[in-house]
């Protein structure tokens, strides 16, 4: 959790030195494929995007480092700034067959590969209904990153989201500022995914974990002195979410309370938070405080 005065961002642990601003201030523009979005169950798509952004989906070292799919594929695209010592070559590469992450696909060679942009066609068919994509996603989660076995609904949701990732038209802005709204949107998607997952307790649990993670990311950005009250409310909201009873109603009521109460309070103070470019720039310019 954030503490007064310091921005302790996990993201920096897999960000190349010098790229802090690029990663913390901006995100690649998302250009979803409108045909896929129109043809897909919105709750499934919501759950998929929420899970894609949640470290709870993965296991082992990735989960401990709080890496999600989105750590490498920001907004579903690539991440030219991704760098983990001993596990990356140049920035933007990763050795995903290193036994550090999982022994299942370890090959005993240091062979980092460029992180692909998921908006580009890949080696696996993304045709609607083709089981190749959910099978491939399962392999990534379980074998490459030691995650627990996902349910079929989780795999369908993740596949739906991956199918929806599209390239941006020529001339479109490459990136956009990162905002509180990014996290609020992902919380909304996670709750929608959880609420629609009554028949799948695992998907519900994972979606709730995804929402709590986003609350934690907001907490990181509200590290400034004077925002501790909001941080306490974020923590309380997270703990409420963890204790919710079964059923969609409880989830919807939680989100209604959040959207009407804490979310606008956060929005009113966003200019004081590390979402604000001036505040972030000052934080990045300040030398990191060494331990006493």
């Amino acid at each position, binding site marked *: 959790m954030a503490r007064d005065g310091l921005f302790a961002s996990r993201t920096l642990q897999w960000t190349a030195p010098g790229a802090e601003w690029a990663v913390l201030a901006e995100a690649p523009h998302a250009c979803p494929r409108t045909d896929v979005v129109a043809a897909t169950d919105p709750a499934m798509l919501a759950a998929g995007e929420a899970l894609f952004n949640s470290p709870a989906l993965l296991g082992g070292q990735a989960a401990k480092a*709080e890496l999600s799919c989105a750590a490498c594929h920001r907004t579903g695209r690539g991440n030219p700034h991704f760098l983990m*010592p001993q596990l990356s070559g140049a920035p933007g590469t990763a050795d995903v067959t290193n036994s550090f992450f999982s*022994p299942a696909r370890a090959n005993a060679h240091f062979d980092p590969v460029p992180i692909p942009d998921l908006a580009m066609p890949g080696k696996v068919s993304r045709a609607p209904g083709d089981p190749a994509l959910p099978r491939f996603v399962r392999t990534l989660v379980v074998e490459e990153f030691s995650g627990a076995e996902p349910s079929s609904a989780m795999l369908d949701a993740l596949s739906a989201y991956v199918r929806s990732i599209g390239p941006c038209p020529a001339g479109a802005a490459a990136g956009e500022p990162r905002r509180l709204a990014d996290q609020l949107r992902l919380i909304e998607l996670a709750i929608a995914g959880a609420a629609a997952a009554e028949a799948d307790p695992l998907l519900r649990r994972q979606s709730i974990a995804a929402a709590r993670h986003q609350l934690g990311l907001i907490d990181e950005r509200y590290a400034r002195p004077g925002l501790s009250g909001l941080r306490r409310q974020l923590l309380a909201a997270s703990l409420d979410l963890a204790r919710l009873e079964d059923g969609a109603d409880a989830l919807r009521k939680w989100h209604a309370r959040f959207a009407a109460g804490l979310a606008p309070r956060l929005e009113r103070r966003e200019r004081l938070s590390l979402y604000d470019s001036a505040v972030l720039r000052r934080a990045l310019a300040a030398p990191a405080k060494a331990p006493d």
Partner: protein
Amino acid sequence: MRRSIGLGLALSMLAFAPALAAGGGGGGGGGGSAPSASAYDPTADYQKGVAAFQAGQYKEAASAFRKVVDAVPRNAQAQYMLGASLLGAGDYKKAVRPLDAAVKYDGKLIEARRDLGVAAARSGDTKRVDEQLAAIRALQAGCAESCPDAAKLASAIAAIEAAQAAGTQSSAVVRPEVRLASAASVDGSYVAAVGLINEHRYDEAIARLDSALWAAGPHPDILTYLGFANRKLSRFDRAEDYYRAALAVAPDHRGALEYYGELKVERGDLAGARANLARLDRLCGFGCYEADELRRWIAEAKPSAG
């Protein structure tokens, strides 16, 4: 602001996670745990000490290692390095106490027994000399001539006997013989060790982690995985020592709390495991893998624990 496994990626390591100042004040904590504002990083002083020791600046080295020892007095490596530095500086009497502590916390640390014997010989403390010679001979007897430490044990006995022969009046300078991996190799050793653990090659992982521990100092990630690898080899007491050492350095270390809790489950101490979980839940207000994993262990243990 960062860039090493030990101080950056560091997975479960939170106390020294990168943090940017955002208006002054406290300590960082990433997505889960918030260390105390005055979190002290003993690895920084340890590495200062190693650099000074390798440059032959033994007084400076002793000064740095003393800070480490003050913070983590049960760390055998740091106690040994303090003693070896004092030995190098010619302060034989002062070297005895930390070397005594080093052998107390790690009775198999041959270098510490050797240098304690040498320091005692130079100080005229024949009782300690005899104790260390006896202890090393006992290790030798249990080791047989072909074991990996055979040459080191024989050399330790020779060094003590030479110091004994030289006596307290000798003016010959004692140069402690310590081989330390470079700090730059720590990241590689750590990543390789975790990979070896994932492949269930625990003895090899321990060797890598030991090397990293000597180079980096008492880093809680390294101590935690030493605990984990020893636990998987059913060396529960040793594993517990490592987990406790990690938590002494970083009381909010999520990985150490999780794995120590799992050890408690394995020992049937469900109440203790639940206490670790309660602490993790307090640290992980926004959820974390370590708490989820320990919760699963406790849930799966419940039926058989009755």
